[in-house]
């Protein structure tokens, strides 16, 4: 297996494993900081695919137990929602939302 090939971790924003490891070395040691620094997990899927792997990499690199690495802040709407639809929700009854 050729280990020199780039491993993409965040598919939406094209962030590689190497970039993430470098960021951790630079001192971005929380999932929130990696997200803000690299934009990993800020694309279409909102980190659904990459965040568990990023958190695992942080754990491996810093030696902290995996369960101590917190996920980044979740932002609504959890799945992409068209602007027009969002406008209709907030225009109507606001009690339920």
């Amino acid at each position: 297996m050729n280990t020199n090939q780039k491993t993409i971790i965040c598919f939406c924003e094209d962030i590689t494993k190497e970039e993430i490891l470098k960021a951790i070395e630079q001192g971005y040691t929380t999932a929130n900081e990696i997200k803000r620094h690299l934009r990993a997990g800020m694309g279409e899927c909102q980190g659904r695919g990459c965040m568990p792997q990023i958190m695992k990499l942080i754990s491996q690199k810093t030696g902290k137990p995996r369960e101590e690495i917190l996920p980044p802040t979740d932002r609504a709407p959890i799945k992409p929602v068209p602007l027009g639809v969002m406008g209709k929700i907030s225009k109507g009854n606001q009690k339920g939302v």
Partner: protein
Amino acid sequence: MKKTAEVIIIGGGISGCTIAYNLSKENVDTVLVEKGSLASGATGRSGSMIWNIWGTDPDKELAKLGLSSTRKFAELEEELGYDIEYTPSDYLTIVTPEEEEHYRKAMAITQKNLGLHIEYLKPDEIKKIAPYIDVDNNPVVGAYHLCNHRINAGANPFYTVEALITNAKRAGAKIYTDTEVTDIEVENGKIEGILTTKGKIKTHTVINAAGAWSSDVAKMAGIKIPTMPYRDEAFVTEPLMHLPYLAERGDIWWRQEKNGQIIAGEETHIIRKPEYNAAASLGPLQRPIHTIQQYIPQLGNVNILRHWGGFEDVTPDKLPIVGEVDELKGLILACGCDGFGFSFSQAHGKLITDLIVRQEKSKVMEYFNLRRFARKYREYTGRWYDWP
């Protein structure tokens, strides 16, 4: 941790980081203390717009400073040797019949004071340069078009802060993140040092660049300042093709990032109560969404990816507080920037550096000094603060 420092900056947002960079460049022994990570407060949550600030002051001092700040931003990438995703963009300020008179006056004043060329476009001309703007079905009488290309822009707040801090560190500044200031030691009307969660640092000069938390920081030194945190919210869409012009309408702001995402929000803090709650809600998104859809109907099909809340640091007269505090030697304020902190940050950096390095007390500094509240707002009592 360092034991002493010539200057300590509290707050690792865009203002604090710019000041740290400017001071360390002038060989001032600088320490920056931030309670979270860099740009974790208003900076990272902002629209990071670099635009001309109109300002509420009759003398247009704020607008002049803002203009110098936006021009500085245009040179920043080269100066710092860093890609901060600086994206200049052109704006059209769309005018409805009711606002015609108001805008004509405002634009004339701006043009006269700042020497900017502002073009007035008729609906047909808007259609020509931005065919996606729905002029026919909206009450549009025209639009103001700022022709100076380097006035309206945006940048990535995280990259900007990182670029500034990397350069500051290279020049010798020490940066402590995850370090909260717990107290400021004052003896005989003079600052002696700060206490943090990671130890004590001796200093005689503290710069309060804590943004929404600036009044809490000032309180540690026994000084009351009338700044209050107001929540604002924003959202971001999926990446789109580049739109050459974005329409500005009333108090809705929006800009397109370098990667094509549109980020938008509303300036609504006036109707809300001061609070430290950043939780996002659907309500504040209503008006920006409807305005965008009204003027560019096609955008109704574009997905919203995220929305979030952040804080603005607002003063009663909506002007920033810059400069020394009369009652306490050594406490310097660089806060109260309302919603234009990012645009204004380079002016902050220059003013504070001039004050510390060259003891320069310019007329502008006097204009934005804290003492204006003692005079003008003596009877002002906020929800949380009683001004003496």
